[in-house]
Every structure is written in C-alpha cells, then in structure tokens.
C-alpha cells in the first residue's frame, strides 16, 4: 500500500463529508478523499488504485469494471449494485457511477469487495470515520463522567482491552493507550470538576481537562471481561462546607449522573442488528435494505446507552456481515449480557401494513414448565482442588423460557416508549417462535421498527428523524428496564 501520494482530489458532483475518512495503517495515517452524492458516500476508483496498488480496468461493451490485486479480481457492475468477488456476489449500496473521467464506487466497496481479494485487513468504521488497513490496533474507547461529586469520577473503557496509563498534569489527565489509534466515543460535555473529555494530540491519547477547583486527581486501571478501565477521581481544592451551613445540592438528573460506588446489577446490553452480509432482509422499492437500517439504529442506540446511561454495550455485528442466527444469542450468553434486543424491520405482502411491533418468544409445553419452575436444572461437578460445584444446565431451546416473564415486562416498556415516538402496529406486542430469542439466557425481545413494504414508512425509515426517534424509544425502554431489574435484584 502507498501512503506517499500527494493530496488527492475528487472532481465529482456532490459535497465532501462533514468529517473526512481517515485511513490508518502501519505506514501511518492519511485522509481519504470521498464525496457525498445523493446521500451516498463515494470514493474514486483511481484513488483506490493508488492507495491499495490495485489495477482497475473498464470493459466498455459490458459496462463492467474489473479491480485486480495479485491475480484476484472483483468485477463491478455499472447497472446493478453488486460485485462479483472471486466468483461470489456481494451487494453494494449503489453501482459504479461516473463523474467526468473518474469512476466512483460506494465506500462500502472497500470492506465488502476489496477486502476479500486484498491480503490485509480492510475495516471500515463508518461511525468513527476510520478506514483500518492491516494489522493495526484500534480499540474502541468510551469515556463518561460517572459522578459529578466532588470528588468527580470518570471512567474510560477500552475494548478490546489494551494496556493504558494515566498521567496527571497541570489541570489535566492524559490517558495513553498502547494502540495505533483509538475509536472514540466521548461525552459532548464534562461534569463536576472535569470540564471536558476530548481526543489528545497523539492518536492514542484521551485528555480530561480539569476545572479551576480541581485538586490532584487519583487514577487507577483495571482489566476485566476483556475491557480495560481507567478510573479518574478528581477531588476539590475547596473544603466541603459544614452540613448545616448550606442546604444539600439538588440531586442531578438520573440520566446524567451514575454512581459507581456500588456495582449495578444491570450493566451490559447486547444489541443484535438483524440480518447482514448476504442476507439483506426486507428491501424497499428504492433499495434501502433492512440490514443497513438495523445496524444504523443499533449504533445510535449504543451511543445513547454508553454516554447517557453508562452501561456497556456489545453488538452482535459491527458492520455488514452475515452472522448465524444462534451465534447472536450465544454471543450475548457468553458475554453474560443482562438484556438482549434484536432489531429488525418488517415486511408484509400488502403495502398498507404500518407500525412498529415488539415480539417476545412464545413457549411450547416444555417451555411453560421451565417458566413455572423459574429455574433451570443444575448438576454437581467435581471442582479443582477438591469439593464440588453446581453448574447450571440450560438446554438451548429452553434458555429463554426462564426469563419470559421479565421479557414480557421489557416488551411492554418497549411498546409504551415506541408508541410515544413512532407509528405503532395494532398488534403492538406479539408472541411468536422467534429463533433468535430462543437461546437467549436473559430477558430478550425483538423489535420490528417499521414496515419497509409501506411506501410512507419506507421513506421515513431513511430519515435521521425516524432513526433517532426509534433509538430514543429503545433507549428509554432500556433505561426503565434497568431500574426495574436493579430494584428487583436481591
């Protein structure tokens, strides 16, 4: 790959994206020129050729474009939004287009159609505007203010875990992660004695800017469950007033401030963006695919949960890839998630059906028996060092049965919050044999956000307004359910 090319220029109609795409590789980082045309981010194939050392050949009679790398080929169609990658067909958001003498392809071409023929990883992270090439370490870093205090407490989570150090400086704390770059999710504002949390001057640092009354901060690092956490506690230089001198401060809004003094019972949410890869799900007449909508809303929801609620979030897929249906619940189970939410968009044979729907699992006779017992079977196994320990045995097809009552509570909350913000179907909550819910060993529900077969809903599903409304509704439902779960916990 070549990183020494001069500044590239896309002579295309359209506008540059608000934040440029940044390529990160062992050789360094650089801005990748792209352009937004009709809401679609495009990259010129001659720029791709220079960056990745691929050969591009256009076949005028057939209208196809062949991209070759070391004998491996991807053939793009100028009429269909597809590419043939080493003989396998992959979908793209749009076909190859022309602007003057240049050929443009959607940026999704890079991970979907170029990566399979390239000999290094090509990972496009749309949310953080990063294009990761090769064996570089780019963990996701989520920062939040847990308590305004004083002392003010903040947490920086690094996943997958990477070694990190925190250095207190004059009026600031610099957190340095052993990584090539960071995928950042930072709060828009600080809180208490922390004025701001922002990206550092180096690509692997995060800086906490402290307020005027901040004393020397204390920092600690720990790693658990594959996540490294740096905690920063900032005391105040102003001594606390006598209790009788001033009235106690008003409690801050619950959504803004969280206490880390006691471990919450509910702290990990698994979001499952439905479909993906060669399974597009329902497709609208103008080409919007269910898999794209579910992933986008999942990312919006994750951002809300991490920054507003302070819970950890895992997603069954971060990009456009196929995931086996049982792997989705297995991922949540293995991560010991407290909640599983599968996102989908619906389709009907007629065009009139509209509105969001919530599904929870319907139980057969065997499942009902498990639900009534409210527990699963356990076996006693010999433990290392002597003695025995009890191991819970959960048959896959009955995993959800023990949680169905709490899943029903969560579904009701989802329905109420969705009803406040988006159109909802007359059959708002339904029980059905949804495969993805069967193996989830935690409260779980599936949300169909809208009917993409309804022309009006299909149009709205493309808008930020609709997607944010759905994400807000799901966020509020999860926040309510967390309170419910924490209160219910022994």
């Amino acid at each position: 790959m070549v990183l020494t090319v001069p500044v590239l220029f896309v002579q295309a109609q359209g506008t540059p994206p608000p934040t440029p795409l940044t390529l990160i590789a062992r050789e360094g980082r650089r801005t990748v020129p792209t352009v937004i045309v009709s809401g679609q981010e495009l990259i010129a194939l001659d720029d791709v050729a220079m960056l990745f050392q691929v050969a591009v050949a256009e076949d005028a009679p057939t209208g196809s474009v062949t991209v070759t790398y070391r004998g491996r080929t991807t053939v793009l169609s100028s009429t269909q939004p597809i590419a043939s990658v080493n003989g396998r067909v992959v979908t793209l958001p749009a076909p190859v287009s022309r602007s003057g003498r240049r050929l443009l392809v959607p940026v999704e071409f890079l991970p979907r159609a170029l990566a399979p023929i390239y000999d290094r990883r090509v990972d496009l992270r749309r949310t953080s505007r990063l294009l990761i090439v090769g064996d570089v370490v780019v963990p996701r870093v989520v920062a939040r203010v847990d308590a305004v205090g004083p002392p003010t407490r903040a947490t920086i989570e690094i996943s997958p875990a990477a070694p990190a150090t925190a250095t207190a400086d004059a009026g600031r704390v610099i957190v340095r992660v052993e990584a090539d770059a960071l995928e950042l999710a930072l709060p828009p504002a600080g809180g208490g004695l922390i004025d701001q949390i922002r990206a550092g001057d180096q690509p692997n640092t995060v800086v906490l800017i402290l307020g005027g009354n901040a004393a020397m901060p204390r920092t600690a690092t720990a790693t658990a469950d594959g996540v490294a956490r740096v905690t920063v506690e900032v005391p105040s230089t102003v001594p606390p007033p006598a209790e009788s001198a001033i009235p106690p401060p008003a409690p801050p809004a619950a959504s803004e401030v969280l206490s880390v003094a006691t471990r919450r019972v509910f702290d990990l949410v698994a979001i499952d963006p439905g479909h993906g890869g060669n399974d597009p799900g329902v497709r609208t007449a103008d080409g919007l695919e269910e898999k794209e909508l579910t992933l986008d809303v999942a990312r919006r929801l994750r951002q809300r949960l991490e920054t507003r609620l302070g819970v950890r979030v895992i997603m069954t897929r971060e990009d456009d890839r196929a995931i086996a249906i049982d792997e989705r619940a297995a991922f949540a189970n293995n991560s010991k998630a407290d909640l599983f939410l599968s996102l989908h968009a619906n389709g009907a044979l007629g065009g009139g059906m509209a509105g969001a729907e919530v599904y929870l699992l319907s139980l057969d006779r065997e499942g009902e028996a498990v639900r009534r017992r409210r527990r699963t079977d356990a076996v006693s196994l010999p433990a290392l060092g002597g003695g025995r320990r009890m191991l819970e045995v959960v048959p896959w097809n009955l995993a959800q049965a023990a949680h169905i009552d709490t899943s029903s509570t969560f579904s009701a909350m989802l329905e109420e919050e969705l009803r406040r913000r988006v159109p909802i179907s007359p059959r708002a909550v339904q029980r059905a044999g949804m495969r993805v819910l069967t193996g989830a060993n935690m409260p779980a529900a599936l949300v169909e956000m809208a009917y993409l077969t309804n022309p009006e809903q299909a149009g709205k599903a493309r808008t930020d307004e609709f997607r944010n409304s759905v994400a807000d509704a799901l966020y509020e439902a999860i926040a309510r359910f967390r309170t419910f779960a924490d209160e219910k916990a022994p």
Partner: protein
Amino acid sequence: MNLHRILPVAIGVVLLGLLAWGVTSLLERLTERDAAIPVTATPPPPTAETPHIAATLFYATAEGDALQPVQREVPLAEGLVAQGRQILTAQFAPPPAPYISAIPMGTTLRAFYVTEKGDAFVDVSGISAAHPGGSLTELLTVQAIVNAVTANLPAVQRVQILVDGKEVDTIAGHVDIRQPLVRDVSLVRAAEAAP
C-alpha cells in the same frame, strides 16, 4: 489373476450391491419419499371422472396482515401421504383473487411423509431464496403450511418443515422451524365460503 482370487471378490461385490439395494428400498418404503413435485400454475380443474374433496387452504389477505381459510376442491388421493401431497400442491399454487399466497412463487414440494407418531414432514425447495422477508410474512408462510396439513389431515398433529431435505433454523431469518410445529391460528381470520 486366478479364479481363487477373483471369486471371493466377485461374491463380495454382488453381496454389497444386494445390501445397498435392500437398504434403499426399505428407506423408500418407510418414508414414501418421491422426486420433487413441481407445483402447477393452477390446481387441476375438477372433472366428473376425478373425485375431489373439499380442503381448507390458507391464503394471505390482500393487505397481508392475516391468513384467510378458503375451501377449495382438491383431487382425492389414496392414503394419508398421497392426500397430503395433493393438499400441499394446491396450497402452493396461485390462490383465487383477492387473496395472496403466503408461500413464495417458485416454492416446490420435494417430499411429504408422515411418521408413525403423527409428525408430518413437508420438504420444500426454493422457499428461502424467494421469500420477501419480514417477521409477519414469515409467520404467515409457516402457519399456511402447518395449518394446511393439520386442518385437513386430522391424523397429523405436528408438522416439521424441511428445506432441501434438511432441518433449517428459519425460512427468512425469524421464525424457528427446527422443531415440529403444532397448528397455530393466531394469525387466521374466521373462515368464509369458497369464491
């Protein structure tokens, strides 16, 4: 090569052939499988020579929000399995107006068989590739198949759907079909007379 060496080999080959033929015949008789049955564009018209039965078939409403049971004439066949094939062939064929088939065009019936326990196996092909997706539509597809069998063949209690001869998780990513399913009328409207 002398006769002493050839003879045992030849006898072994013949015995193996006979064994393979026997096993194949036995399996065919047990399962009553047959070759793929292409679905005709329309059910064969009733004639005076061909006796028919009135079967309840399940089609999606024009809006696609529910299944409507509709009485249709289906050729009478000898035996449970043969009658089941006739019913499913009619169910897979295009429906009368104004209904819509909940089973995608291009779906073919590969095989139908019933176990001694009363579990029917409906083996189809082409159903996933042509399915438009969506939880509701997938529920209608599954219920149309299961209900068409259980409503017309009282001996059948449960229906297992196979795709291309194999158990699959779902048809289009939502509804669990790895287990035999019982009749489900949650999306079925009240019956009405044949058009």
